[in-house]
């Protein structure tokens, strides 16, 4: 008798992390399903992961670079500067949208089978993350096109992939849990995504933003977790970008990211036992 489960009122969480490990293959399977389904439902399949950032980048380069004439701040092609910020931002936006709908989209699973519910939103973030990695191929193509050699510190990028993952996972998880109970949240998320791209250093660099913001309010800019993440990506990719880790603003973003992860896991765990009754 190796398995013994005790179900007790209010103590559902006892074996949670053990169960999460036992069901670890489900992370992979659910992400695989989402990718596979998208691939089958759309003719262009995975290409969509590439087309969207490419088009957004072109528009942003045109608006911010050519119309607003902001490109002078760097010797690196402006498209690459924009793209370096665009990639993590689009990942964040996608992860937020996908994960917040993930529980409601998988309602059947939640009401009919047991497994740690955390797997569902995490898988959807993983799915967006895979799209995100694919877009890096596009970045490489742009290097070739512009005959641009990235700095050696680009090798640090996997580290910031993880950071971007955590930055997306925290708010994503939080919104997912809230969305089950208060369906209004699904209207808030597109708003966050649309609004957020302008308060994040995507079309402009954060140095350009800092020039506009009075010094004593600058830290507020970094309460946006993606501000720090995008700065870090840009540092890895753009030759003359400053190292954000030398200033303390980056750490504000980092702390916000970690707080969000902690808070959202706590919130999710608290709400998750009622999902089957609520959904």
């Amino acid at each position, binding site marked *: 008798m*190796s398995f013994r489960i*005790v*179900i007790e*009122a209010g103590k559902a969480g006892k074996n949670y992390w053990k169960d999460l490990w*036992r069901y670890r293959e*489900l992370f992979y399977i659910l992400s695989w399903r989402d990718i596979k*389904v998208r691939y089958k439902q759309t003719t262009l399949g995975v290409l969509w992961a590439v087309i969207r950032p490419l088009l957004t980048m072109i528009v942003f380069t045109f608006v911010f670079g050519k119309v607003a004439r902001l490109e002078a701040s760097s010797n690196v092609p402006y498209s690459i500067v924009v793209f370096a910020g665009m990639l993590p931002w689009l990942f964040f936006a996608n992860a937020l949208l996908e994960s917040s709908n993930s529980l409601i989209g998988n309602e059947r699973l939640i009401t*009919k*089978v047991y497994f740690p519910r955390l797997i569902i939103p995490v898988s959807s973030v993983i799915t967006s993350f895979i799209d995100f990695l694919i877009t890096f191929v596009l970045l490489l193509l742009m290097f070739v096109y512009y005959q641009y050699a990235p700095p050696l510190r680009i090798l640090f990028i996997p580290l910031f992939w993880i950071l971007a993952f955590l930055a997306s996972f925290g708010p994503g998880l939080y919104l997912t849990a809230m969305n089950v109970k208060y369906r209004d949240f699904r209207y808030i998320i597109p708003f966050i995504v649309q609004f957020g791209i302008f308060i994040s250093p995507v079309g402009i660099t954060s140095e350009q933003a800092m020039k506009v913001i009075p010094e004593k309010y600058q830290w507020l800019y970094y309460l946006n977790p993606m501000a720090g993440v995008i700065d870090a990506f840009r540092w890895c990719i753009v030759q003359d970008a400053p190292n954000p880790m030398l200033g303390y603003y980056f750490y504000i973003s980092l702390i916000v990211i970690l707080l969000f992860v902690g808070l959202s896991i706590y919130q999710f765990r608290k709400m998750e036992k009622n999902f089957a009754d609520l959904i």
Partner: protein
Amino acid sequence: MSSPAIKVDNIGKSYIISHEGQDRYTALRDVIARKAAGVVKKSKPVLRKEEFWALKDISFDIKQGEAVGIIGRNGAGKSTLLKILSRITEPTRGRIEINGRIASLLEVGTGFHPELTGRENIFLNGAILGMSRAEIKRKFDEIVDFSGVEKFLDTPVKRYSSGMYVRLAFAVAAHLEPEILVVDEVLAVGDAEFQRKCLGKMNDVSQKEGRTVLFVSHQMDAISRLCQKVIVLNGGNIQFNGNSDEAIKIYHNKMENTSALARWDKAGYMPGNELVKLVEVAVVNEQEEIKDILDIRQAIGIRMKYMVLQDDVPFTHGLNLYNAEGVHILSSHDIDTAKNNQSGKKGEYETIAWIPANFLAEGLVSVSVAIMSYDPFLVHFHENDTVSFTVIDSMEGDSARGVYGGPFPGIVRPILKWKNKRSI
């Protein structure tokens, strides 16, 4: 091995239902007026909250290797109990101990994605049910074999017929190898042949492999075939826990207000008049034991006991049979008694009408009985819905359906003589 597979201790589950404090029917004018008033006064519609206990402190034990059925009407708490056992929802009170790997099947094909192929869905569904990829790979051929859809493995399941879909889904579930299997009314889907296959598989699981099975169904024949013990739930409480024949009887009593035995108290009301009064009606098998589940291959007796209160009254017996849809299957009068116009002394009498074997179709049959005189025609009593019984086909191949397990409609099911010859 002496510890129970499942030990349920005072489990209760409550839901909060909120009613909006509004009249059921309101004119749009009122709604607008109230909304307008609400804006001005910032008043919210009154919310009444009500606690509803779907399960009320239930306790029971299930031994290892036992096959236990759970029956009860809609809303009796069956699904809630299964959801708690499957850890989909948490109990409000109480404690459950489960010894062994548990798998629950509350739905066939949970997580199946219509866009994915059969092959892909096997892996997806398996993983969702808790199988590892290595385990699925190992059992893959067996699963495909059981499902019988090997030709369509690489077709998206949205192109499957509903039968194929269910077969594939059950095949995956059937190859889970838990020590405890919890199954909801999943057999209600799919055709009869498939249902038979599923039942067979579940029989294997419980009897040959000695696993513990917990089975919820509305199909009493499936329950009686599969389970030795049955728990009857009623309004969130356990009404009965024990022998399956008895449990089904209790359930039917609740449902149809009849069982295989109806008896009238001699001190109280008895159907009849000053000449004849009805004492008892019972359904019996060939051994004349009272049964409410009868094999289609056996004759079924309707036994009537009555009191004759005057000497030399000429009368005869009659009965009617109805099926679950209310179709009047047949009427029968006891023509021997009528022909002889026999009459006897005062006293208690007993008569049995034998319905031949292989005559009634499977399903629930309800019986009405009567005693009447012919000349002049007079009904002494005609009692509707006195007793009921269920005819089952054990599907061993020697009934009218032979080896065919599919749908077999009709209100009677005799074995006919077929004469075959070559004509050209």
